[in-house]
């Protein structure tokens, strides 16, 4: 039994990707969500720091002034030279009428945990509904004791590649390509070419 026809799966992916952008103001990317949990202690620390941020305009101004003075004293901040008349009439860095492509802040860690839980729950629901995925075909030749090791190694390589390329087949392949981002187009081409090459090499080795 096929889970979903291709056109319905594509539409569902599109709704998910666009909905994610509308809700979170960030492109959808699964590897980025997973990567947050690889550094869960740092993420939790950042959220704690955010919750302890100075409140009140006066307290914030005082803390900022103190930090500024320390950064200047430490040589981290250097006062710029007075700008020349020519520089003051130079064109602004951002062309008028073009909105900057700013990203929203990442969702709370709990929200991304819910996202990952939803991924797992979706697969479980589909399975409970009686659908059968073709996992056996995908793992053909790797059945038995070695299958878990192959899966683990594949997952490790997937994570390494996703972190190295700044995104996975979701972030680059679905969201980035849809936005015609050159880096995502190149990354997706590399993903697919590598997958085809590895599949052909492994297929040849098995036959």
């Amino acid at each position, binding site marked *: 039994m096929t889970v979903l026809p291709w056109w319905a799966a594509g539409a569902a992916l599109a709704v998910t990707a666009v909905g994610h952008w509308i809700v979170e103001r960030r492109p959808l990317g699964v590897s980025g969500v997973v990567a*947050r949990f690889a550094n869960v202690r740092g993420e939790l620390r950042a*959220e704690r720091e955010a919750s302890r941020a100075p409140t009140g305009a006066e307290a914030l101004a005082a803390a900022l002034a103190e930090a500024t003075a320390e950064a200047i004293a430490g040589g981290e901040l250097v006062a710029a030279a007075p700008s020349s008349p020519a520089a003051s009439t130079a064109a602004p860095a951002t062309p008028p009428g073009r909105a900057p492509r700013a990203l929203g802040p990442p969702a*709370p860690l709990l929200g991304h945990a819910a996202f990952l839980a939803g991924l797992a729950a979706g697969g479980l629901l589909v399975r409970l509904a009686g659908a059968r995925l073709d996992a056996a075909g995908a793992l053909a030749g790797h059945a038995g004791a070695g299958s878990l090791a192959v899966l683990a190694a594949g997952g490790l390589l997937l994570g390494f590649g996703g972190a190295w390329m700044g995104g996975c087949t979701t972030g680059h392949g679905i969201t980035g390509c849809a936005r015609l981002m050159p880096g995502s187009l190149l990354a997706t081409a590399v993903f697919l070419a590598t997958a085809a090459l590895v599949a052909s090499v492994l297929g040849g080795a098995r036959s």
Partner: protein
Amino acid sequence: MSACEHESVCPLFRLFTMSSCLGIWKQNYCDAEWRRCERHRRVGEGQAVPPNLLPNGRVLALPPGSHRGAP
């Protein structure tokens, strides 16, 4: 050199533009060397960015009397 693309949403950038004393942060990071900005780096990597994290990576000290956060 282009300015940081996150200027419109960065809460610290607004503060840096409101005070001439704090404008030095804007000169040193937002207008030119935003690739060095710790906030920019974390946003690019999808990490959480505390509102009190300064561009140089230092976490803004808390008001006296309250619990102090990580340096």
